[in-house]
């Protein structure tokens, strides 16, 4: 089944059009996942929107990989007419995560991008109003990054070594 998904039509189309951009194609748990270079991501999504009718943005979120010093951004699109979903992933450098905004294609990306900025510090270039959305504006850190452990680090009464991460 996984093989079939990976060789789906959309993958062929993408491979033809953006051969240099595609880093890997997988389908974990039967969900087509395409990892891409960050440079042309908006162009690719625009292509999927216009030509392939992936016109529903299901969700968008960030993932921090401290080992690879990168912050990934995951876009999940849905083609409602054929009920096909696709997940696009890009990796941005941890030190300077900048990517163009998706609000030019999907208005719904507005708050999702603000949320991703709020928690991971990803800068979405061209976003109309890139300010924090859920956290307080005075906050100086990006709390979902892995370097910020959940619990208060000044506490001395708990031994974290015993209880995993």
């Amino acid at each position: 089944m996984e093989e079939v998904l990976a060789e789906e039509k959309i993958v062929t189309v993408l491979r033809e059009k953006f051969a240099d951009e595609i880093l890997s194609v997988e389908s974990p748990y039967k969900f087509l996942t395409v990892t891409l270079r960050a440079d042309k991501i908006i162009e690719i999504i625009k292509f999927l929107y216009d030509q392939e009718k992936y016109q529903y943005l299901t969700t968008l979120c960030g993932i921090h990989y401290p080992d690879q010093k990168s912050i990934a951004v995951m876009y999940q699109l849905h083609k409602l007419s054929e009920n096909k979903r696709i997940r696009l992933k890009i990796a941005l450098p941890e030190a300077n995560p900048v990517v163009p905004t998706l609000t030019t294609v999907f208005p719904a990306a507005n708050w999702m991008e603000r949320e991703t900025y709020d928690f991971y510090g990803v800068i979405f270039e061209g976003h109309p109003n890139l300010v924090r959305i859920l956290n307080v504006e005075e906050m100086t850190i990006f709390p979902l990054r892995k370097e910020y452990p959940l619990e208060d680090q000044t506490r001395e009464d708990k031994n974290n070594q015993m209880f995993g991460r």
Partner: protein
Amino acid sequence: MDQATKAFELSDIPVKEEKKYSYLNLGPTHPATHGIFQNVLKMDGEIIVEATPTIGYIHRAFEKLAERRPFYQITPITDRMNYCSSPINNMGWHMTAEKLIGLEIPKRAQYLRVIIMELARVADHIICNTIIGQDVGATTGFLYLFQYRERIYEIFEEICGARLTTNIGRIGGLERNFSDKAWEKLDQWLIDFPIAFQEFSNLLERNRIFMDRTINCGPISAEMALSYSFSGPNLRAAGVDYDVRVMNPYSSYEEFDFIIPVGTQGDTYDRFMVRQQEMWESVKIIRQAIEKVKKEPSHIFRADAPEFVLPPKEEVYNNMEALIYQFKNIMGETEIPKGEVYHCVEGGNGELGFYLISDGGRTPYRLHFRRPCFIFYQAYPEMIKGRMLSDAIITMSSMNVIAGELDS
């Protein structure tokens, strides 16, 4: 002569003062907004020119919390998102975890889940629809139908011991079988609710005052709704027949016979009517599920997955295996595969998605909740632009925005 024949024009009158807008702070705690929502409204008289929503007042960092909790401890977090229909959230999370570990759930457990989820959907829609009535001044329906929501909560209480934040079920199925009392209450509810609900429908559905008040109030077109990633009843009211239960069936929804009601205008009245019809469909699904449950062996209510369910206490003290599983459960020593999985369910107000990345550790590496409210609430300023303040209030209540889910 010239002066007299010249037509009178508005621009001839000298404008004395500049147009002045007033600003109104609607919220964060306003009795009419049913939750913690703040909107700074720029008003021209009673017309809204611009709205700026501020959210995050009850943000509790669920995504961060989830990164430190074993799987079974994440269920109570999901309770507190859409607290009007927590069982759907709970089960959505359980199904995500089951998808990750590849657990097959027995049919009877799936049907029991369907019963619980549909009851939760009815409870959710009862709140939303009666509150639309409340906000336009029809308190009767609100007080009358709330009894039946209360009785749904009594059924939940029989099943899991809790009412609002249910923590219902476990990974692998339910933690205990339905008691006889629960079946009894469910059967009685199925007799009483349709009668009361029909009365409620008669009260509002074709009520001239209610229709005048809600038709063409806060409408959204199908294109707009799709571009703002609407889902659930709000999207269906705009005329798009997207329902996760049909598109990506989970928990054996594909075996059930029900229709997906759609609207045409996407206004408050259509959203109200879509929910009304969905409640009838839910009742239909529950009836079918009960019939299906009767055909299955009555002692099965969960899969054989002892790694994810605490064994009964008497067994823990007398049985070595149970003791081991108790220990494994509490300490989070369960083997969890690496993987990346997305699972979505049809929540009370839309597609509730769980995007889970597991690195094989005891807790998720990353858990992202696709919260329908958070996504469609951003279209709210657009929907109330150029409308009256009182329309803004009922538009918000008809969108079924739940603060807990909005702020995660």
